């Protein structure tokens, strides 16, 4: 019997193996719980592929953007608001990856590993989610984009609240034109599921000159007194950086006003690859940013294989540089905010089924992008742009600072029209808002993007101004 009991000891091996298996099982459950429970096959949460157990989504003012009623997901009554907020709210089927209905699925349903979906069953709905955006403002911005594709974003640069995020093209979520989208040949619905503000990347064009300027202020001591000559093009190593006009001899401020390519190509050459890269690194290029749970597309700036000519082009925002609109808004916001960027937020608060607030957006400081003096200088320069070049009449009573951009996307004659950019902010004390406008293939920045920005900012002033 002693021998037998000694042999029996070997059975501790399967026993321990079983225990280890239990641990692995629990771990798998724990790590995959969110993923598995949110599957469309989960009939606690979905009915025929539609998320029905999610709570209400409201905008900043409390207007309902999406709710669950009678076992169905329902949206705002106004068609224009439904369309303008499509990409922010997202859809229940998960086509729009950055919509809060998809990216904040867990929060909306209130699923937790400990409680499972019990609370959802109990209260018949999930957590309520209040967005930072203002639905009316989004609708206005969407309308301002007219027939063009593009995106508009407005952020309070003191708090980080994203009051307007809209992306075009969009559709009315109440009746998704799935046939049209599937059979689309005209390009009308190209990238319709993409929120261009968070997930798009564009060539920055002249808006990048703001960044080149920042680098110049930091690194070139006599930039203010330098006078350079523009002959309509600047030749570097056989190639040339073309300019839109012959600006003659001009100084730094004037060059930024008229957006002189020759001037900034020469500045870029003076700066050199290293210093320009250092500045962009400080601004967060080639870095991943998130807005809450939404991941931004990465802005890229890479001069590692650039020739001198390429460096010149890069200095005026062409070359391979790509910028995400939301990232650009953060940069402009940082200039307005005295150098420090604030973390933008899209979700203002989450309230659980019992009415308790479980998440409240807070203002968080982001990267220190510029030194205070540089920011001050840039503010003056951008203000000068509007005052002396675009004209304050374009932005009535807004005290805007800004820079337009016309990003060439095609080198051929008669190719696609350039992207029109506008980035800027208001200097009014009661209106601490920064704006970014991108109009895809819209044409010239000042002719296309400025009116969109103006319309949007006028609405902002109407809503928030005193």
């Amino acid at each position, binding site marked *: *019997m*002693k*021998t037998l009991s000694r042999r029996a000891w070997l059975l501790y091996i399967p026993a321990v193996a079983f225990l280890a298996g239990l641990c692995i099982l629990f771990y798998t459950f724990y790590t995959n719980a969110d993923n598995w429970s949110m599957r469309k096959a989960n009939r606690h949460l979905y009915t025929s592929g539609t998320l029905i157990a999610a709570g209400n989504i409201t905008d900043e003012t409390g207007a309902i953007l999406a709710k669950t009623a009678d076992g169905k997901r329902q949206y705002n009554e106004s068609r224009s608001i439904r369309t303008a907020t499509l990409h922010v709210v997202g859809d229940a089927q998960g086509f729009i990856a950055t919509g809060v209905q998809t990216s904040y699925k867990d929060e909306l349903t209130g699923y937790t590993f400990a409680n499972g979906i*019990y609370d959802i069953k*109990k209260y018949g709905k999930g957590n309520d989610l209040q967005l930072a955006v203002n639905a009316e403002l989004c609708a206005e911005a969407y309308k301002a984009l007219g027939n063009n594709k593009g995106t508009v974003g407005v952020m309070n640069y003191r708090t980080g609240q994203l009051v307007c995020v809209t992306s075009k093209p969009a559709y009315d979520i109440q009746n998704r034109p799935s046939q049209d989208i599937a059979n689309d040949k005209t390009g009308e619905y190209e990238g319709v599921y993409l929120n261009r503000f968070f997930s798009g990347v564009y060539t920055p064009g002249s808006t990048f000159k703001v960044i080149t300027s920042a680098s110049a202020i930091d690194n070139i001591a006599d930039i203010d007194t330098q006078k350079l000559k523009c002959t309509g093009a600047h030749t570097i190593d056989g190639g040339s950086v073309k300019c839109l006009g012959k600006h003659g001899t001009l100084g730094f401020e004037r060059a930024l006003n008229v957006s002189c390519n020759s001037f900034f190509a020469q500045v870029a050459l003076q700066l050199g690859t290293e210093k320009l890269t250092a500045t962009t690194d400080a601004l967060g290029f080639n870095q991943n940013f998130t807005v809450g749970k939404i991941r931004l597309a990465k802005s890229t700036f890479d001069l590692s294989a650039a020739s001198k000519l390429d460096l010149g082009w890069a200095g005026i925002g062409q070359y391979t540089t790509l910028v995400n609109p939301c990232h650009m808004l953060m940069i402009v916001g940082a200039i307005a905010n005295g150098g420090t960027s604030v973390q933008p937020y899209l979700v203002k608060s989450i309230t659980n089924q019992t009415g308790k607030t479980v998440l409240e957006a807070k203002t968080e400081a982001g990267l220190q992008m510029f030194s205070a003096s540089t920011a001050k200088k840039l503010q003056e320069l951008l203000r000068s742009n509007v005052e002396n070049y675009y004209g304050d009449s374009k932005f009535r009573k807004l005290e805007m600072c800004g820079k337009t951009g016309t990003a060439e996307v095609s080198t051929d004659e008669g190719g696609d029209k350039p992207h029109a950019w506008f980035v800027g902010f208001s200097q009014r004390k009661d209106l601490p808002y920064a704006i970014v406008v991108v109009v895809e293939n819209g044409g010239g920045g000042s002719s296309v993007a400025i009116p969109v920005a103006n319309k949007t900012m006028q609405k902002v002033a109407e809503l928030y101004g005193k």
Partner: protein
Amino acid sequence: MDAFLTQFDYLVRYVLTAFAVFILLRCVFSLFRLRPRREVMATLTNLADDSEIEIENWETSIGRSRSCDIALRKYNTVSRFHAVLALRKEGWFIFDTESKTGVYVNGEQIRRSQQIADGDTIAFGNAVMKFHSNGYGVDSENTEGGEVTDFTNAARLVNLADNSAFYLRTSCLIGRGRHCNICLPMRGIEDEHAEIYMSRDGWMVADLHTQSGTYLNGELVFGAYALYDGDIISVGEYSFMFRE
């Protein structure tokens, strides 16, 4: 009522979980902790060198092989798997497990199995052992229906020489006579030497007017003395510890 129902519905999942976990874990930990008692059930005394082998299992294998419970490795007349000593309902048995040299009980070869009694001499080849059952294996038909005794706390005498325990019931005679409960066939011990019995004051030890006397913790016993846990009773050359 409605309020009660909603509360019930809400609480029930925690209550059920708590109950289930309590009940199951209580059982699980109990099963993890439970261990059988280790008791010396019998002893085999090797007559060649007077060494004693304690039997703690109901079945014990005997043989030359290393994997036997009692490995008689020095005896080359013992088969590798020679015999099995087993406690059955009827008492102790010895089984010859197809050994070459056979098993002998009190000098007679057994066929396949044989019941053995306390004091029997068992020979495995040339290994000769004396068997002492330690109170186990006595047919207890007559005690059927009695209370189950918890041995851990029962009064008993522990033989200090071999640590075997003798459990006390109502009274117990110690002496050389065969009728005594504890039989000590030694010179200097009288037919009925001492008695241990239960009185109103608990367990007592009495010397039965002997010449050599009975000693309690080294003191000569006159008449009857009360016993306490840990007392040592000496009778002739034997010493017992009283445990309660």
